[in-house]
């Protein structure tokens, strides 16, 4: 019974932290879907959004505003920052690089990462800034059934709820709104979309903006978890296997990929780790991604890659 309780606890904990990776992976998917850019800068965007949010929040609270007003204003401020970033990236990097191959675009986003990291730290500071938007303590479920109960972190539950709402919102946005349809058209074939009168650069701006807002949402959760600080940029590397497993172009895939990675790596770490030296979650997700790719080269939910000569 204890063993079962512990297993469930690790499984649930893993699934939940997987959803938190998905929050970061979603931003990748959005941009890849619409512009074919593999955006390495997503982690840096989470850092930028988080710093803008927490610095504005601290300033507003220090000036005596009630907390909820300050939160709303700070989120607004961070959204404006993300919009400006999206515009700058579209205008100066992605726009001029249209029609280049994927590798060049990928490398250019690493360049963007350097710029964002430097600028964000220069403007907002390189300290650690605590953010407390969600509760971080834990529930202990089924204490009658298992000794000690099953631990579930409240922050993880919030993260899962937010991710659910976010995916639903994005689905509606893509399927039901005019801009969403235009986005899908551009994703399919940007030349054809251009010729029927869809403004490409506007659409790309929108995509980067939405990815920026997703980064902002991720920043609220991860900032509460870690405190807003430079290390948040490392999340990008945690999100990569998630999106490879799910498929680079699928929004539900990002969530499912997150669940698989989270549960897989936590179970592997707790049950396999001690016998081979520990720390295996560092590579486990990547090896899992490699295995999935060998079976399905486009990921679990990705669009089939069709090659023509």
């Amino acid at each position, binding site marked *: 019974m204890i063993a079962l309780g512990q297993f469930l606890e690790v499984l649930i904990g893993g699934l939940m932290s997987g959803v938190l990776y998905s929050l970061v992976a979603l931003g990748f998917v959005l941009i890849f879907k619409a512009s074919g850019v593999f955006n390495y800068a997503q982690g840096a965007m989470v850092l930028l959004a988080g710093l803008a949010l927490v610095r504005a929040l601290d300033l507003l609270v220090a000036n005596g505003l009630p907390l909820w007003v300050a939160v709303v204003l700070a989120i607004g401020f961070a959204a404006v920052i993300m919009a400006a970033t999206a515009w700058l990236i579209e205008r100066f990097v992605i726009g001029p690089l249209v029609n280049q191959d994927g590798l060049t675009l990928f490398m250019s986003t690493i360049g963007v990462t350097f710029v964002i990291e430097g600028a964000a730290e220069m403007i907002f500071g390189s*300290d650690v800034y605590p953010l407390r938007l969600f509760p*971080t303590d*834990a529930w202990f479920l089924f204490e009658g059934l298992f000794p000690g109960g099953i*631990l579930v972190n409240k922050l993880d539950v919030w993260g899962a709820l937010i991710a659910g709402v976010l995916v639903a919102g994005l689905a509606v946005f893509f399927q039901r709104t005019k801009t969403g349809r235009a986005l899908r058209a551009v994703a399919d074939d940007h030349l054809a979309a251009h010729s029927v009168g869809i403004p490409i650069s506007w659409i790309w701006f929108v995509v980067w903006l939405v990815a920026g807002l997703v980064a902002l949402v991720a920043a609220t959760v991860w900032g509460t978890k870690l405190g807003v600080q430079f290390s*948040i940029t490392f999340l990008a590397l945690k999100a990569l296997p998630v999106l490879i497993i799910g498929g680079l172009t699928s929004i539900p895939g990002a969530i499912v990929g997150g669940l698989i990675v989270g549960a897989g790596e936590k179970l592997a770490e707790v049950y396999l780790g001690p016998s081979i030296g520990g720390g295996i979650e560092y590579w486990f997700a990547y090896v899992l991604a490699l295995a999935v790719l060998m079976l399905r080269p486009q990921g679990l939910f990705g669009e089939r890659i069709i090659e023509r000569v």
Partner: protein
Amino acid sequence: MASIARNVLMLAAALAAAALSAPAAAQNEQFIPILSYRTGPYAVNGAPYANGVVDYYNLINERDGGINGVKILTEECETGYATDKGVECYERLKSKGPTGAAFINPLSTGITFALTEKTATDKIPIITMGYGRADSKNGAVFAYNFPLLGTYWSAADLAIQQIAKELGGFDKLKGRKISLLYHDSPYGKEPIPMLQVLAQKYGFEFTPIPVTHPGVEQKSQWLAIRQNRPDYVLVWGWGVMNSTAIKEAAAVAYPRDKMIGVWWSGAEPDVTPAGDQATGYKALMLQHGAGKFPVHADIEKYIYAKGKGSTEPGKIDEVLYNRGMVNAMLGVEAIRKAQEKFGKKPLTGEQVRWGLENLILTDARIKELGFEGMLKPVSISCSDHEGARYGRVQQWNGKAWKVISDWSTADESLIEPLVADVSAKYAAEKKIKPRDCAKET
């Protein structure tokens, strides 16, 4: 195309101008390089330390006009806690100033490992106060390494002593479970051999648990701790890893007062992000803690009142700021000691090494320097490059660090054999002939 060529040309011209106009160094200056990290994942802890170092050197220049009239010249180089950048910084700065670098202080165990051989060749002492290689305490083999005030092996012993005290005696350690949550790098691995020795001696069960750099993801480690229920968890973290460990501990309801951090896991940036959850968390002290001491009055008067401070005036009593000052002070005193023998002029690294090796700070001298209450007497010699092995324990009460223990001393009878063993291996590997410390003056 043409614009690129023009830009490249302009850049080259700017570089040539910079190379030619290298400022002529004044002759009566002692150059001290500062390797720091104010950006990147470890900036949170690196910046306050660097501020303490910089402010203390400035204080010596502003208040005393230098060390016996020899002004201190510094240059900072950003390492980002990366070993390769640290090596580049060292190479860049080692021969600046009239006599080259007096000593180097990389604030990274990884960089220390990479520089140990180079500094011995270049004859520049490497001061690693409270970090670095534990075996380099043996000055006979490591002539240029100075792990002052405490190595990680001393720290491991001090931590176990504290646990024994809390449990009510060393005999109570038998059968207990103690885990080490460590940063998976040379820094975090350094205490493991000592803890294994201690586990064998006292009969407790020791489990090392690695956390991968930078330490943002520790959920599985803490779930394992929740299942294994160790009596104590030692935390050997740096940067974001510390605060994340405290938060995850709170999330799995592991009591914070059963966690003991090393002295690099016991500063303000490690606990404040965790908020109330950090209350009760304990950490070793590298002798000193937070708070203001007589020397801070001078810092305020000569540096901050003139607007020359490197941080906000409210932050000059933090743990890491104080540690930076203590570190700078020991370096300055070593130079002062060396000046007694070699004259009041800029000294070479080799001469400063003599000063370090013969440095003795008595209580009276420490009081004179304004560090009373921060330090116990220090006495460095050829065979003992550590100089002191004292420690205390502090606890975070939600607002400030409070000292909760008396001074204790690491047990040399346990550490010394390990030091002798490991340093002898290093000497054999590197074909170093250990000096005879009895003949050193």
